[in-house]
């Protein structure tokens, strides 16, 4: 069997790009959830280049009632936002989020990865367990890696599902991110008089921000 598969791999060339487009289209259409490029590759015949097919499809769907959007590492077909008014039937009642939840979500999105203590410092109040739980339940936030500071606190970051829900290609595309960053409002600036801790945090934070959403990288 293995032998046969190998033969298939070498004997048959990847399908023509038009055919690959059809295949990628079918895979994306069939799924409600965004599909990773890796999964697409796994389902296409060997040697296919879904990146090209995806690029072509994105263009083809640009003016249509359904658009091809990138969500993090994934791709998904979504109805065009201007046609939302037709969809009352499909629209789901989104629970109105409390001000605390909305603010906490925004802080996590713009400052990720961010610790609970940092969220509390920014908001000036403690973050209730319920708020974090709610955002976790919505699958909008997830635990990030632990911070390398005393106590090794957990951090929070936004999820792929968050990006999907708000129609963001990546966390770099968060509205106003660039302005906030250049205004220094995303810096972790500790209160004066606590220099030792702050230095360490600053250095680390810098690294993380560069990694997660370097605005300068966005073309």
């Amino acid at each position, binding site marked *: 069997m293995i032998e046969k598969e190998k033969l298939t791999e070498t004997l048959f060339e990847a399908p023509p790009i038009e055919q690959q487009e059809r295949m990628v289209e079918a895979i994306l259409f069939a799924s409600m959830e965004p599909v990773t490029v890796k999964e697409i590759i796994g389902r296409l015949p060997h040697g296919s280049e879904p990146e090209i097919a995806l690029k072509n499809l994105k263009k083809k769907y640009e003016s249509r009632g359904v658009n091809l959007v990138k969500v993090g590492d994934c791709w998904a077909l979504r109805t065009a936002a201007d046609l*939302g008014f037709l969809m009352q039937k499909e629209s789901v009642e989104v629970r109105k989020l409390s001000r605390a939840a909305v603010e906490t979500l925004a802080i996590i999105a713009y400052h990720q990865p961010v610790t609970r203590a940092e969220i509390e410092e920014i*908001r000036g109040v403690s973050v209730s367990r319920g708020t974090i739980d709610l955002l976790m339940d919505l699958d909008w936030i997830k635990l990030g890696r632990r911070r390398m500071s005393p106590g090794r606190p957990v951090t929070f970051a936004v999820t792929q599902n968050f990006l999907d*829900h708000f129609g963001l290609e990546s966390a770099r595309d968060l509205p106003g991110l660039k302005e906030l960053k250049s205004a220094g409002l995303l810096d972790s600036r500790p209160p004066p008089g606590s220099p030792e801790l702050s230095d360490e945090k600053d250095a680390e934070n810098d690294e993380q921000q560069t990694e997660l959403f370097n605005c300068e990288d966005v073309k």
Partner: protein
Amino acid sequence: MVVNSSDSDENLSSGMAPNEFISTDELIVDLDGFEGPLDLLLTLSRTQKLDLMQISILQLAEQYLEFVEKARSLRIELAADYLVMAAWLAYLKSRLLLPPDPDESGPTGEELAAHLAFQLERLQAMRDVAAKLMARDQLGRDFFARGFEEKVEKIRRINYQASLLDLIQAYARIRTKDEFRPFVMDRNDVYTLEQALERMRGLIGYSIGWIDISTFLPDGWTSSANRIRAATASTFAATLELAKSGDLELRQSDSFGPIQLRSKGSDG
């Protein structure tokens, strides 16, 4: 960003026009609506109708302290963090108003004020982007996913493996299994004690006088050394057995000499 003291002085000297404030009463009624002292400060700062970067922290501190005072007079119990903030703002106010004490270390009043301004600006910025975020088109409200999922069929394929060696060994196993049998000694060259006894008993009656033991060896057992050895050993063992039971006598003239035997019943 940095709130300098001259700014503060100016604001202080110009006094606070009461109509510029949200009334403290109004704020106290809405106390439950505030998400902590920072939120309250942010709301107070808005009454200055200035860019957050230009607000007077000193003025803000005064407003806050006034608010706390009013709450106290109304016997409204404020949460601890509001009181902590009040104490800190009172301290900040004194640092901003009094000339700096050269002996005192730590951050200056201006530094502390600047940080508070930064915090307020940052909180406001977070609120602005939170609003922007929530105003975005949202999945399930403005744009929609595929209405139903087309089932992806899970196929479990078993890839059976066998190597050429497996095959050959299997064949070898089958073709050779008939060749195995339970272990038994090959007895072709074994002349048993029983056989010798039987033969001796039959012959001894006919013997007269001393006869060399070798004459009792069976026919056909003298062709090979193995057979001679086996037959001789058993015949000798048989004569010992018969001598023991008194049927015959044995004699040997000297070491390694010929062994002779005769029937006990015969005379001579």
